[in-house]
């Protein structure tokens, strides 16, 4: 605690030095970074949620929320960022997740003396906590970070309580794309699987990891009560179209046309909106009455 205060005093001191002599190069200052490039959508959201967006000087193409982030200079797709383009923004620090890359570019950026911070990519609540707290620390706003995480935690716990009142958890199947071919569905060990479980559902799909095509026959055998899909402009499928297809038509979900669509980035982003995403999904699955009962 004492150290943080000392650090903050130092930072204010150096900041004033910078203010005094404009010629002083910013990157040589050992203080909270002022020029940040984010190479991951969830990290960009965290910076915004902490109210520190004025420090962002560049983002990658996965940073689409809030909409204002898309107006910032682009460094390319997170797995394929451009070294020189990023350096041209003269960042003090680049914040990224484990799958940002390619490694060669990361090494080039590190060699160029840029502080490159890598955070967990894991689709878990723990990773969200880690990202929020570490980014807040990096920005020298640890208190704001704690506060933000507390808000997220509260929503997650509420959703958990809401889901706990349900006697029979629903079997949910996340469908990434369905149309003219075997639908791509979420098996275990991925973002959708985590979200389904956090929202109090059971992933109807077992037996493989990640997102894979699944023969419609296996889809019937999985007996999903609810189909979960991403709402994307122009790609969103209506319940009638979906449940008219053979396979989907034979699932328990078809009886009451239970299709839940959610914003993809919100659902699978694992950023600060995860609390809202979980409550939204839980409410979509089990209705709102339970929420009142839980309180």
């Amino acid at each position, binding site marked *: 605690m004492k150290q943080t205060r000392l650090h903050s005093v130092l930072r204010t001191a150096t900041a004033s030095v910078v203010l005094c002599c404009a010629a002083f190069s910013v990157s040589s200052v050992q203080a909270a970074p002022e020029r940040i490039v984010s190479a991951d959508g969830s990290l960009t959201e965290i910076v915004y949620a902490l109210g520190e967006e004025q420090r962002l000087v560049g983002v990658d193409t996965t940073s689409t929320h809030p909409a204002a982030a898309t107006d910032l200079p682009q460094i390319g797709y997170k797995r394929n960022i451009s070294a020189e383009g990023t350096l041209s923004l003269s960042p003090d620090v680049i914040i990224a997740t484990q799958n940002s890359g390619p490694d060669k570019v990361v090494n080039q950026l590190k060699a160029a003396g840029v502080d490159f911070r890598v955070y967990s990519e894991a689709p878990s609540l723990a990773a969200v906590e880690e990202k929020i707290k570490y980014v807040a620390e990096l920005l020298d706003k640890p208190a704001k970070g704690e506060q933000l995480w507390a808000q997220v935690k509260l929503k997650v716990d509420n959703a958990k309580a809401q889901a706990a009142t349900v006697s029979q958890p629903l079997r949910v199947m996340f469908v*990434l794309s369905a149309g003219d*071919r*075997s639908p*791509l569905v979420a098996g275990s060990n991925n973002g959708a699987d985590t979200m389904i479980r956090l929202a109090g559902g059971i992933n109807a*799909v077992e037996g493989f990891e990640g997102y894979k095509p*699944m*023969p419609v026959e296996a889809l019937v055998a999985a007996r999903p009560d609810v189909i979960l899909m991403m709402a994307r402009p122009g790609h969103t499928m209506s319940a009638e179209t979906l449940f008219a297809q*053979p396979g989907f038509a034979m699932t328990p979900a078809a009886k009451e046309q239970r299709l839940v669509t959610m914003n993809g980035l919100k659902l699978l982003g694992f950023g600060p909106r995860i609390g809202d995403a979980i409550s939204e999904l839980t409410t979509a699955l089990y209705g709102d009455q339970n929420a009142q009962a839980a309180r």
Partner: protein
Amino acid sequence: MNLQREMRAQWTLGLLGMLLLFTLVISVGVGPMSLSMAESLQVAISRFGLIELSVPQHVVSVVESIRMPRTVLGMLVGAALAVSGAAIQGLFRNPLADPGLIGVSGGAAFAAVASIVLGGTVLSPLSARLGIYMLPLMAFLGGFITTLVVAWIATSRFGTSITTMLLAGIAINIVTGSGIGIFTYMADDAMLRTLTFWQMGSLGGATWDNVIAAATMILLAVVLILRYAKSLNALLLGESEARHLGVDVDRIKMKVILLSALAVGAAVAVSGMIGFVGLVVPHIVRMSLGPDHRYLLPASALLGALFLLLADMVSRTIIAPAELPIGLITAIIGGPFFIGLIVFRARKGGL
């Protein structure tokens, strides 16, 4: 000697037909859902009114609206790819030719990837109207139009040059390939997954609706191609020799190419990119039956159908409940088998 060969060819055709029938039955009987073979077959047979049904309704639905269309689609696509491959190899007199060479696969893939990536933005009025039929329709049109372009490039007032067509096909494939690259770059994560799997092929989208649509085009094209067997035989001697034999070479070329584009375009539209069938199957047949198109074409159709049915059974059961894309299986089986065959024939000196 010649008579012996014809006898052998006819026997082979009969044998392939029986094997196909047998595989068809098995294909309806296996799948990721654990139904007994007897139950599944009961459903299939009851359709002909021979026996009373005594199985639960969900078994009937799975067999009738999932397995049966998928099986039929597999046979159609396999036959379409193999017959077109055989006809195009004959036409080009080039063992490396396959339906991809006339641009149909490249064009279809380009249109399909475009509709996956642009479906939500530029092409949204189209996708709103056509829904899930947009991609197959676009793929079919893309394939057919690209083939027309290739044929147009190759045709001058001196007729259609096969060499120019070969070059045009390669050039068009480079163009469509770079177009696919651009769309891949524009795609987001979800689109990337969809388009990657599309390019690996799958029979998973089979419904009676699209089976009937594909069947109309594929059967028409295959039957018409079979009628050109004798002309293709004459072309094997060379173009001028064929002309002397009274074959209207330019007309045959154009017709075979357009019919192949029709068959392959329809196949790619409903099943995505399934490689190797069009290249390997005709070769296997040619190595065992010889180059006579009267037998080569029908035998290729049967073997293509058989091969794809087997590959699809592997596709939907090997890593159940997930599906291994069928294009990977045809390549994994087809590639080494083909290499083995070439090595074997080369040692015997009979390639």
